[in-house]
């Protein structure tokens, strides 16, 4: 058994290595949030300063862009998770007419190049005379995140044992009760994973958003535009804060689970 435990430790270390690898560019981003840069470009280290933290909200459009991004990500994630989980359940558990087409559409939504999706959504909104704003961004983000939630949830659902739900129903639970007490807890890891993917996709999207945004600007849009003249250090600081808050949430979560056990 010692071999086994050694293997587990190795895997633990390996997992952390992968996390560090994935986070390594973030370290550079954090560092350059402290760069005492004297020109618009922020690519060479010129000394330490806390100035950008003090001037964090000095670029009003950037602040608005960040807020837009977070609101859009939250709303679109909630919608995607609800309807995506429903469809994932239907596909993973039930037989119904139109399942083949549904599967195909779920695939098509992933495989459509982003640019094509953005452009065709814009044509659709224009011909439907729908004004482009945060709502159209949310609609589009739900569209491209939906398949990821569906696929993730379905992968969970197909591994479930349907007899559990049957047992619950036999014991007199209502359909809703069965879902809340039995099904939902069982598929929760899939739902959560889908939610995280969906949030990450939304926060990071540039291409589709750039078509359907009207005059609403999001964080990635603002940054891509700023590349032309140099990205202000406040962008790094905001990135740092997003990351920092994320780490705090993770730590809080870790501490909370320790208490519980």
């Amino acid at each position, binding site marked *: 058994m010692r071999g086994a435990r050694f293997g587990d430790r190795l895997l633990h270390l390996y997992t952390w290595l992968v996390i560090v690898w994935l986070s390594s560019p973030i370290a550079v981003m954090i560092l350059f949030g402290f760069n005492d840069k*004297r020109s618009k*470009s922020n690519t060479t280290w010129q000394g330490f300063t806390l100035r950008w933290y003090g001037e964090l909200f000095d670029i009003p459009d950037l602040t608005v862009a960040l807020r837009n991004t977070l609101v859009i990500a939250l709303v679109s994630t909630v919608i995607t998770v609800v309807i995506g989980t429903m469809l994932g359940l239907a596909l993973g558990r039930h037989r119904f007419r139109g399942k083949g087409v549904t599967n195909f559409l779920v695939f098509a939504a992933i495989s459509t190049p982003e640019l094509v999706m953005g452009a065709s959504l814009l044509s659709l909104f224009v011909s439907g005379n729908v004004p482009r704003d945060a709502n159209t961004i949310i609609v589009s983000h739900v569209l491209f995140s939906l398949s990821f939630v569906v696929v993730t949830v379905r992968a969970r659902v197909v591994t479930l044992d349907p007899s559990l739900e049957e047992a619950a129903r036999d014991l007199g639970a209502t359909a809703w009760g069965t879902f809340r007490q039995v099904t939902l807890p069982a598929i929760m890891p899939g739902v959560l994973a889908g939610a995280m993917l969906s949030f990450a996709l939304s926060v990071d999207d540039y291409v589709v958003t750039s078509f359907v945004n009207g*005059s609403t600007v999001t964080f990635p849009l603002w940054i891509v535009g700023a590349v*032309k003249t140099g990205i202000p250090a406040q962008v790094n600081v905001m990135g740092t804060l997003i990351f920092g808050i994320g780490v705090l949430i993770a730590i809080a979560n870790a501490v909370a689970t320790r208490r519980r056990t």
Partner: protein
Amino acid sequence: MNPLMRGMTQPRTRRDVFRLTGLSAAGLALAACGVQGQKVAPPKADAVADYWAKQTKNGKVVFANWPEYMPEDKGPLERFKKDTGISYEYKEVIQENAEFFGKADPVLRAGQPLGYDIVVMTNGIQLQHMIELGYVVALDQSKLPNFQANAGQKYKERAYDPGNKYTIPYTSGVTGIAYNTEYVKDDITSIESLFDAKYKGRVGMMSDAQEIGNFGMIALGIDPEKSTEADWKKAGEKLKAQRDAGIVRKYYDQSYIDAVSKGDIWLTMAWSGDVFQRQLAGEPVKFIVPEEGGTIWTDNMLIPKGAANPVDALMLMDYLYQPAVAAELDEFIQFVTPVPAVQDLLREKAGTAKGAAKKALEEMVDSPLMFPTEADYAKLRSYTQLTTQQEQVFNPIFQSITQA
């Protein structure tokens, strides 16, 4: 069987697909009417006068621009508001010309307003399409006194918009060569250096068909503005040979500037404003206009069709040509201003400033990147003017090199 595959392989799928096709009849109808052409003839002079006669000042203006193209305190716009009583909305919504056109096109095609009164676009294919498709409001020349009085001659005579009919410049830049002085010890003067096997794998070229095509032609002694299809092909061959010899490391977009300042590439096609900012940061990069010539590009202000407040927009466009306002803008943007008087104003300001601010201002005033000399201007060429048919020949010649 896996659900996805089952869906795709079972016989009833085919029926489902037919059903799907039926559902999308609406989509087909939508497509059929969505892409009609509408090339328009330029409006007659009376039509322009009629249009402007019907417009009134509304007391507000919506300005769509690139990020970092306006001081953070919006100084020039605030002054405009104080002087004219016109309130403004300023939106940093333009990130890229092609993309901006891509999203403006369906809206304007459907005859809907973009929601902006002023839009800034670089001269080039997309701007040309905007004009050709009738998406741009012809300007009332009588309402541009500051522009007439203060714009440099070169900015009033632009081949892509003769007579300043549709646009006036916002800011300009030069395409030339940048090199990293840590790695390149010679003084680069010629465009031939970009084709020099000595720098194998260390040369950056731009991916934009116009930019790279121009440089290929300039290297062959051809003026891009007067070039023919045969010239493009010759330029294409030269650029292909350059690629096949392994001289080019990569065809860059904006990211060339990081690459050259870090030494990933040693010399590259470059835009003046970028290099100037890197110099201010103390990075070892130098910019030259090759002796054979470089190109000048301009970001232009225009009023899109359907704009709600064209009179206010025109007032603001002209207002930005007051030398003091232009100076404030240029000090922030650090590209080439269309108002030559700015150089003296910034020099005066440098005279009274102190410390780091003084030094920065002095560097700006003396920089040929912000204020090219007459000799620099003499070497500068404009983009090739292309019709749609020509473009369909021009683009593939160079894209087959940059996108192999």
